[in-house]
């Protein structure tokens, strides 16, 4: 039987490493997903995912259980992501530009080759365009969009993660979506 988050958190607080391992395995992909949504590259996503769980382990004593463990964990992941983006400044965007260039080169190569590969390459091009659009959003709008449209979190949960009101979440989501619409104009038609 799978143990609940609360039980595992309680055991992890008592230095049960195996309980914490189970929590890590339960949420690692989602934490990685948030980090990837915020940074758009594997290296940074890996750093953020590792840092998130290490911080969570160290701060388990401060977790009061007022929100769910995953909400608390997401908040740490989002803060780690925002910290990294602020430290990096424009470098993250440059990484993304590099990824986009690579995707475009792959597309050009594939167009010269078999037609079956074309659809896949175009999907790759779209993914790069989406990633570039997300990276161009203001940090708070990006965080809201990632948590809502990629992670499928409800507004009130996002509000708890980002420490703002649900109304603010809805407003940021509105601006983020219209921002993405402008970036993806050529795909929308």
């Amino acid at each position, binding site marked *: 039987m799978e143990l609940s988050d609360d039980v595992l958190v309680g055991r992890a607080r008592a230095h049960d*490493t195996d309980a914490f*391992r189970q929590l*890590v*395995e339960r949420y*690692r*992909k989602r934490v*990685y*997903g948030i980090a*990837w*949504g915020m940074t758009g590259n*594997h290296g940074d996503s*890996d750093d953020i*995912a*590792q840092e998130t*769980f*290490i911080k969570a*382990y*160290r701060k388990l004593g401060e977790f009061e259980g007022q929100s769910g463990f995953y909400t608390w964990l997401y908040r740490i992941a989002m803060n780690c992501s925002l910290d990294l983006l602020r430290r990096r400044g424009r470098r993250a965007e440059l990484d993304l530009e590099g990824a986009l260039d690579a995707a475009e080169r792959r597309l050009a190569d594939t167009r010269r080759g078999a037609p079956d590969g074309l659809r896949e390459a175009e*999907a790759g091009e*779209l*993914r790069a*365009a*989406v*990633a570039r*659009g*997300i990276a161009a959003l203001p940090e708070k709008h990006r965080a809201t*969009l*990632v948590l*809502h*449209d*990629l992670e499928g979190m409800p*507004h009130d949960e996002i509000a708890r993660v980002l420490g703002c009101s649900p109304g603010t979440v*809805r407003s940021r*989501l*509105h601006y983020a*979506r*219209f921002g*993405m*619409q402008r970036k*993806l104009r050529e*795909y*929308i*038609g």
Partner: protein
Amino acid sequence: MRCHRIERLLSDYLDGVLAPARRAAVAAHLENCPSCAASLSRLERTCALVRGGARVPDPGDDYWTGFWPRMKEQLGRAEEPRPSPIERLRRLLFPGRLAGVFSPVPAMVILALVCFNVLLLTQMRRGAPGSAVPSGAARDRDAAERRFASLAARGGSMEISRRAGSGSGVDAVLCDSGGRAGIDEYVLQPAAFRRSARGPKMTDYIITRAVEPSPRSEPRWAY
């Protein structure tokens, strides 16, 4: 409702978070306004593209298999007690595998020998082995002391002032009053400096002028 107000509500309408009355008003407007209906359609398409296009690439089984072991290693390091200063010194002196070979005791013996040799060399350079130079004396103080010793031996003197807070005036003039080697002893002599509760320190003063010896120079104190 007018179109510009409807557009501000489309994102919430799409998420189904509008209050029932407002939702009904938006739906009624959309039925009669092709422009807003098209706007909603574009927004829906945008959300679909974002969801589909922002698919997180799976870094692979190898990555996930190694995720916990790597983190456990970092957690272990985080939980490790902070090494003592001796231990940190030992790791600094004997990094890598050598750290396991050298235990703290021989490391301390070697360190003591090194310190002793450095001290001995310092004393030999100064030319006054065994003189009571306070530990922790600043480098500029040593330089000043050597310079003063040289000047005093030739009958010269030095003007000094406080390092901060007393302007650029001369607070004292140092000269040799009879065989003392340490510059602190000279600084202590003037009454103005004795008023300090903490006691004057050479690091509190700077040399403003070195007075080269003259044939008629006499030992004196002025402030």
